[in-house]
């Protein structure tokens, strides 16, 4: 940073700054990759492969075989194994806002651990199972059924790491004194945490409300999760937009007197 930039800054701020010149360009790029990522997921999961909503755990064997060997499933796995790299970006967007909160970095580390483990056990591994099944014809139906079970159970039953993530996120919002995100979002996030716990019995039942395609394990989670995801993104949008420029890491000069982010609590 040099002094010329500092002296021209107020004049520049008065005009409409082109988006490419925004000081928050890094954050906006990451932010806008997220809707792209979720839309791609939606398209691939539902109309392309019909992986979601989940097929029944008690589907007859010929149906399982037909699904596991469909070409679209393989295509879906290819697209998703490319796109899953964007999951870390969305979690980094959360982490950036958490860093501004007056909470201990341990909350961020917890979310980081959950997101590393979650991306592998809850995303890469199930895609791998579906992909392995679709890759080669000639496997015995029993093998395909195992891969099918593994794929769906890992997708729907991966709750531990996400519990840790949402617990850390929700608690950080509630304990934060800088009011980076609204408190009610903290309470809503606690509910998101509860839906993860409700999915725990997914390993037991093969049909009914607690099967992996059941009312409680899948549909309740969707009912709470989908609006939550939207609302979080609206809140994060506002948080990035309202972040004062002098607080950014690339700010020319910092104002003293604000509670330091990332320390305390």
């Amino acid at each position, binding site marked *: 940073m040099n002094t010329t930039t500092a002296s021209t800054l107020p004049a520049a701020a008065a005009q409409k700054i082109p988006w490419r010149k925004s000081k928050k360009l890094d954050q906006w790029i990451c932010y806008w990759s997220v809707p792209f990522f979720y839309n791609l997921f939606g398209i691939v999961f539902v109309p392309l492969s019909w992986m979601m909503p989940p097929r029944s755990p008690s589907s007859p064997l010929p149906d399982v075989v037909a699904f596991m060997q469909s070409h679209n499933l393989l295509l879906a796995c290819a697209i998703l194994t490319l796109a899953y790299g964007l999951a870390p970006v969305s979690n980094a967007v959360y982490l950036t806002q958490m860093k501004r909160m007056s909470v*201990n*970095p*341990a909350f961020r580390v917890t979310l980081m651990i959950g997101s590393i483990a979650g991306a592998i*056990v809850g995303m890469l591994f199930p895609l791998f199972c579906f992909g392995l099944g679709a890759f080669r014809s000639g496997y015995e139906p029993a*093998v395909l*059924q195992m891969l099918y079970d593994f794929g769906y159970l890992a997708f729907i039953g991966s709750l531990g790491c996400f*519990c840790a993530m949402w617990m*850390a996120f929700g608690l950080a919002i509630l304990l934060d004194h800088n009011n980076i995100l609204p408190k009610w979002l903290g309470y809503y996030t606690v509910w998101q945490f509860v839906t993860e716990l409700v999915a*725990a019995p997914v390993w037991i039942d093969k049909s009914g409300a607690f099967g992996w395609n059941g009312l409680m394990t899948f549909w309740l989670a969707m009912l709470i999760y989908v609006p939550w995801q939207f609302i979080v993104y609206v809140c994060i949008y506002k948080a990035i937009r309202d972040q004062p420029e002098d607080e950014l890491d690339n700010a020319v000069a910092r104002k003293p007197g604000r509670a330091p982010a990332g320390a305390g609590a």
Partner: protein
Amino acid sequence: MNTRGQRILLWITPFAGALFVLAWFMFPVFSPQMSPTLSPQEVAAFFRANVSGILGVVILGNLIGASLAPLFAVTATQMSRIGNSSAVFTYAYIICIGIGTTSFILADYCWGVAAFRPDRDPQLISLLNDMAWFLFTAPVGAIVVQNLCLALCVYLDSRTEPVFPRWVAHFNVATAVLMIPGAFSLLYKTGPLAWNGSLSFSLRLATFSVYVAVMFLVLLRVVGNQRDNAEMIA
């Protein structure tokens, strides 16, 4: 100095401990644990006979693994307070936890998938069971390095009032050493190094349980002694 957040995260650990005790007594399917010498038919029979017990362990295991993350996260931030020339040990420590948690959860899922449909081909049940034991017992590298990072970080602490007491470093080295035999469980089907052996199973699990309990108490004190508000971890 407000350490409420750290204390909330730490007190999740006894919850993990309680789940572990619950899993151990309610579902004693892994004590005595299965032998690696069982044939696929015997493994399948074992799973058919113990479906509910194994699924109970699987569900609790998933939650236990995740609820240990906050303890390690608080450890990491306290490590970064030590103030060596860089946060290199802290970063290595955090990545190790991510990897270790991943392999533990995958082991958990392999048992879960095997027990989900215990009537599937015994070959597949046996394969899933072996995968689970491999992932559960063998990848000790991450936890060994994790403990050594913490130990080195504490040894190099040159503050007048060290963040961690010196014995915590010795304790972490000792724990790391006791974890090492697990890696050799791939080579043996009987004896102390086999996955049901005294070194690879009993000693390792006991060491880990004691380790978590001791580190919980240590961190309660470390967090209680924290007086500065210094910014930690990038």
